[in-house]
């Protein structure tokens, strides 16, 4: 009896620890270090009457009330030809499409994450016409299509991209969004308060890319005990069953190329 319960406990421990053993998470908060000022107004010189009501602003720097930097990408770097172990819960690419909407003469959201094979749905909620142009993609063939209201474009991509690329509307050239396509789920975009979290990473040492458009990789960024390289990558150790919390990561205008 005694022995049995000891065994069960021991076994139970083994089981729980092995379930936790291999996976860990990364989180943090990007904070803009400096005076972001108020967002710049745009030169809305096309469909002015309609678009001006929505007051689109320059989104190349979006800083929340508490100083959080929104729309920065943080994602796992994986060497070419290598693949990363993916947590069973995240293996399957979601059936729900990722929506990129043309709304109020801007793209919603501004920063989009998409997995290879996943459906991207480009829609138009505006009363005016837009086109959506992904010609800047590198590894995938892009498209440039008129997006009518009520007839969204659906698209999926086969190859992973190394970096987010610009999505534009040529009718309203101020409109910009960024699209990152990866063949694994380990990517995040900072929310309006600058927070991000990447869950269920395989435990171990990994490199993570820090990226913000339009300037690109964020260099010399202090993350935890280390700094990002000239390539915007930082090597971080993810421990099993733990969440590595980078806390507040300060980003200067200089690092964003401003």
């Amino acid at each position, binding site marked *: 009896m005694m022995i049995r319960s000891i065994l069960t406990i021991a076994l139970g421990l083994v089981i729980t620890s092995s379930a936790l053993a291999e996976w860990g998470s990364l989180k943090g908060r990007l904070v803009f270090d400096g005076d972001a000022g108020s967002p710049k107004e745009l030169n809305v010189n096309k469909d002015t009457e309609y678009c001006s009501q929505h007051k689109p602003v320059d989104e190349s720097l979006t800083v929340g009330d508490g100083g959080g930097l929104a729309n920065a990408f943080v994602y796992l770097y994986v060497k070419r*030809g290598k693949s990363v172990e993916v947590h069973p819960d995240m293996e399957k690419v979601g059936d729900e499409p990722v929506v990129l909407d043309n709304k109020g003469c801007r793209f919603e959201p501004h920063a989009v994450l998409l997995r290879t094979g996943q459906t991207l749905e480009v829609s138009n909620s505006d009363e005016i*016409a837009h*086109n959506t142009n992904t010609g800047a993609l590198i590894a995938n063939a*892009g498209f*440039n299509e*008129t997006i*009518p209201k009520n007839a969204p474009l659906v698209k999926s991509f086969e190859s992973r991209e190394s970096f987010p690329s610009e999505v534009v509307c040529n009718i309203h050239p101020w409109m910009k969004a960024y699209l990152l396509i990866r063949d694994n789920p380990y990517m995040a975009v900072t929310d309006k308060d600058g927070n991000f979290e990447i869950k269920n990473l395989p435990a171990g040492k990994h490199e993570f890319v820090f990226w913000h458009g339009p300037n690109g990789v964020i260099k010399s960024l202090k993350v935890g005990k280390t700094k990002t*390289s000239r390539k915007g990558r930082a090597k971080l150790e993810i421990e099993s069953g733990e969440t590595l919390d980078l806390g507040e990561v300060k980003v200067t205008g200089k690092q964003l190329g*401003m």
Partner: protein
Amino acid sequence: MNNSFGRIPWLGVLAVVTMLPGCDSVDPPAFRMNMVEAVSYETAPEYQQEIADVLAALFGTPDEPFALPATGLDQVMLNRSAGPAWSDEAGYNYGLYRKHCVHCHGITGDGRGPTAMFLNPYPRDYRPGVYKFKSTYNPAKPTDDDLHRVLINGVPGTAMPSFSLLPGSEVESLVEYVKYLSYRGEMETKLIQYVFDELGVMEKLDDEGNEIIDANGDPVMERIPFDPTNDPDQREAVMDLLAEVVDAWDGANEMIIAPTEDSIPAEKRSPEELLASIEKGRSLFFDKDKGNCYSCHGPTGLGDGQQDDYNNWQKAHKKFLDETAKLAEKDELDDLEASLLDDREEVAESLYPLRNAIPRNLRQGVYRGGRRKLDIFRRIYAGIAGTPMPGGGPSAPGAKAGALTEEEMWNIVDYVYSLPYEPASQPQVVTPKYTQSITN
């Protein structure tokens, strides 16, 4: 360039980069590196040299081009197109590219020949492998027939002349050579990106893959050379990248837009039928949820709807110039940034003035991509690759319908054809803000 490759065992072929010093007083022409890409990716000089070496091993030189079997390019045709212009005893012409194209498109196919800067639009930079006037879906490559058609017809309304007087075999060889320059240019960019993504100065690893630590407890760093000859992983990556380039081109024939028979308007239509179609086309042209053409081409079709945008070639330069200007504005630059700024400013100075992409003035009735109805139909279906003009048809073979049905696109074709004859109720002159800085 010093040819360290000699025999390239990993390719099983003889390198063609044999350049003996002293055998000629003038240097033979060399391919120029894509400095906008190299500097954007902060490619170190050692890597630039290594990339140039790998490209030379894959593609040879302007005088001795080389078609790796994996490219499927025809070596005989490349030989006829490349090198200095001359004719053999049988009257066969060689050096066709240098004779007919180089003063506009440049040795490297970068669109930077000696006369290029003075032309509007600028001659095409073949290196990104993007072509405007073709029969295929927007992101697809042109077919050989498409390039052939461009050479025979030229691009009316631009400096690109017609080469219809050249013998067929010469035109074919030139098409092959244009593709060769695109393959090489695309590959160059891929290699620059590969080096950025995969190589660089990294922690030195021992045989077990563990970091080696120096006396201070810091990891020992080393530069990983780009040397596919001696590194099997790099070799595989290079061949994969080449296959990506080649596959896209090889797949062009499966990407041709073929209108369905029923949608094609009958040869002989009554004036009433034609008028009805034109009228439909006209309302589609102005319908924001359909053609939406007026947004860019303007309410009277003069091309004055949206003139602030750029085509992809100019957009890449604009991005480079903007980033350079921002770097120059900074107060404190560290050593690395200072030298980067020097590089950037040097490249920035070499770029031609930026020009906006101006939608075509449709009242002139000049169609650069050909004036057959099928040509206009395909422009409307797929848009014009590399430019702001979007497509109205499905985005890929088998994809769901786009904004316009085929029948509607044919209606718009009829309207476009009628536009030069339609009286402009409020005649407007195109009033670009900077006359000097537009692409008409």
